[in-house]
């Protein structure tokens, strides 16, 4: 007599979907009454760097906790290498390496001791463990610091040790939560280089959560989350190319004149612009030419103009109807990749 679990597993094993390292099927999570994840269904492919992009509160962290077996979802399922994260946590744990956002290293211990304890927790011992420690430390370029206590290392180096710690048991799936937090641009570049190396040399599937557009650009594919819902899925270039032409922004003097400008543009050019504060935004082929037309048609209303290739933020706006960032932070984040 096969138990219900065994049956499910057997059925899944006949499904091609089983080959996908991460499969979410209707994954849902509630904190009390609050819906944090709303029926997420998507798959992560083998040996790709997959990004989970979303603003704070979008459900990234919740999803990360569920995938790292630290919390069981209230509905739906998530499989990693065919194992259910809720029902077979220890099988999942063998498959995944995790780099948490918070520091998980013991700073009073040396780099080597941290890796040794981690190795023991994953059943590695003796010569095998020693070889593996040397391998992962060589990979992150810190073999010469093996005897140093972690507190003597810089933030960037500590993050590299975290990565080495997550890789000690040769996981087939690596999960990283906001890995660039607190890293300078150089360390950030290094980190992404390591991730690509893992993907290319060892076929590791990498899942990265991030709230940074520029980081999301590095991913092979992306899932964009907003309020617990999947709003977009695909390669960054693919998602951006779905937006027709250029993104054109007109700055008006006030919100009222922005609304007026928007109405007039809509009427004259038969388009449907969106108004965000003082800004009128629309997508248009031949953006440069369009700008000239608008400025000539409504001379007094336009205070400023920008034309840009669409970025991931535009994908987000197009799918959700609002900006990625709250008012406070949008200054730095908007507009991305300004041209001209």
């Amino acid at each position, binding site marked *: 007599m096969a138990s219900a679990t065994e049956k499910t597993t057997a059925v899944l094993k006949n499904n091609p979907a089983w080959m996908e390292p991460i499969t979410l099927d209707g994954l849902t999570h509630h904190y009390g009454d609050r819906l944090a994840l709303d029926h997420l269904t998507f798959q992560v492919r083998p040996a790709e760097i997959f990004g989970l992009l979303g603003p704070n509160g979008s459900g990234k962290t919740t999803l990360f906790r569920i995938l790292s077996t630290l919390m069981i979802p209230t509905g739906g399922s998530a499989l990693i290498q065919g194992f259910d994260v809720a029902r077979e946590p220890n099988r999942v744990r063998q*498959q995944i390496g995790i780099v948490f956002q918070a520091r998980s290293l013991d700073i009073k211990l040396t780099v080597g*001791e941290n890796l040794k304890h981690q190795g023991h*927790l994953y059943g590695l011992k003796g010569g095998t463990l020693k070889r593996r420690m040397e391998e992962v430390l060589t990979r992150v370029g810190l073999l010469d610091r093996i005897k140093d206590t972690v507190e003597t290392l810089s933030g960037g180096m500590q993050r590299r040790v975290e990565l080495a710690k997550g890789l000690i*048991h040769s996981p087939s799936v690596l999960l990283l939560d906001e890995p660039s937090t607190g890293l300078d641009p150089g360390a950030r570049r290094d980190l992404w280089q390591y991730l690509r190396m893992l993907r290319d040399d060892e076929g590791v599937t990498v899942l990265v959560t991030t709230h940074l557009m520029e980081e999301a650009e590095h991913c092979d594919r992306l899932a964009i989350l907003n309020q617990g819902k999947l709003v977009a899925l695909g390669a960054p270039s693919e998602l951006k190319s779905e937006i027709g032409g250029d993104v054109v922004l007109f700055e008006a003097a006030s919100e009222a004149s922005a609304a007026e400008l928007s109405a007039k543009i809509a009427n004259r050019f038969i388009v449907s612009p969106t108004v965000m504060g003082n800004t009128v935004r629309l997508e248009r082929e031949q953006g440069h030419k369009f700008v000239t037309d608008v400025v000539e048609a409504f001379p007094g209303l336009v205070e400023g103009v920008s034309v840009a290739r669409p970025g991931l933020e535009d994908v987000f706006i197009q799918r959700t109807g609002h900006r990625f960032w709250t008012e406070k932070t949008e200054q730095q984040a908007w507009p991305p990749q300004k041209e001209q």
Partner: protein
Amino acid sequence: MATMVATTSPPRALPSRNASLWTAALTLWEREIVRFYRQKARVIGVIASPLLFWFVLGSGFAHSFRGGATGSDQYLSYFFPGAVVMIVLFTAIFSMMSLIQDRNEGFLLSVMAAPVSRSAIVLGKVLGGATLAAIQGVVFLVFTPLVGVHPSLTAIGISVLAIVLISFELTALGFAIAWPMDSPQAFHAIVNLLLLPLWMLSGAIFPASGATGWLRALMRVNPLTYGTDALRNALFPAQTTGFSLSVNLGVTIAFCLLVFAASWTIVDRRTNKPAA
């Protein structure tokens, strides 16, 4: 069913390598010990604090009680087992505060996400704390000649056993209390509310025989009473004790198992809420 499973190629799964209970517990235990001796202030505290506590507290109490049934020297020797238990209690509490630190720093997350039995996590952490507590308690036995006791090897052996058991039960109790907490302040509030009275009502500072009815009843149900009493059995065979050594050790062992099981149950719960 079986053939269908066999026809599909397996995922790039690694060979099953769940760490054994003991490997995992041992490595967590080792971490506690290494952390301890890296912090020199703690090492000095282990040696210096037992002597200080016993001398200051014992002398103070002895003067307050002078003229009563117990004289100064007699009180110092009565208080001796209680002082050992107090030292053990403080160290046990102190070492379990590191659990809150582990949680806040994120170390606990990485342990909880590892493929190890949850009992190994409890065992490693509790044994680590209990080892440190027991070392302090045993160091304190060096002072027995000061109260005129020259214990036999058997007495020392039984004392060490009692100290180890008391260390384990108190550390495991501290673990169960500290686990759901994220601030050291909240932990301290519970310590003051629960653990200190537990010690005071264990026969450490006054015997149950002299207490009023309800207090005596409380002292009887206090599991720590039996540990303190066991120490008294071993070190002062002449002093009248509440229970026989076998009862004392039996109850203490039972309580060790009970609090360990409670801690394990708490840690083993997987819920819809974040685990660490």
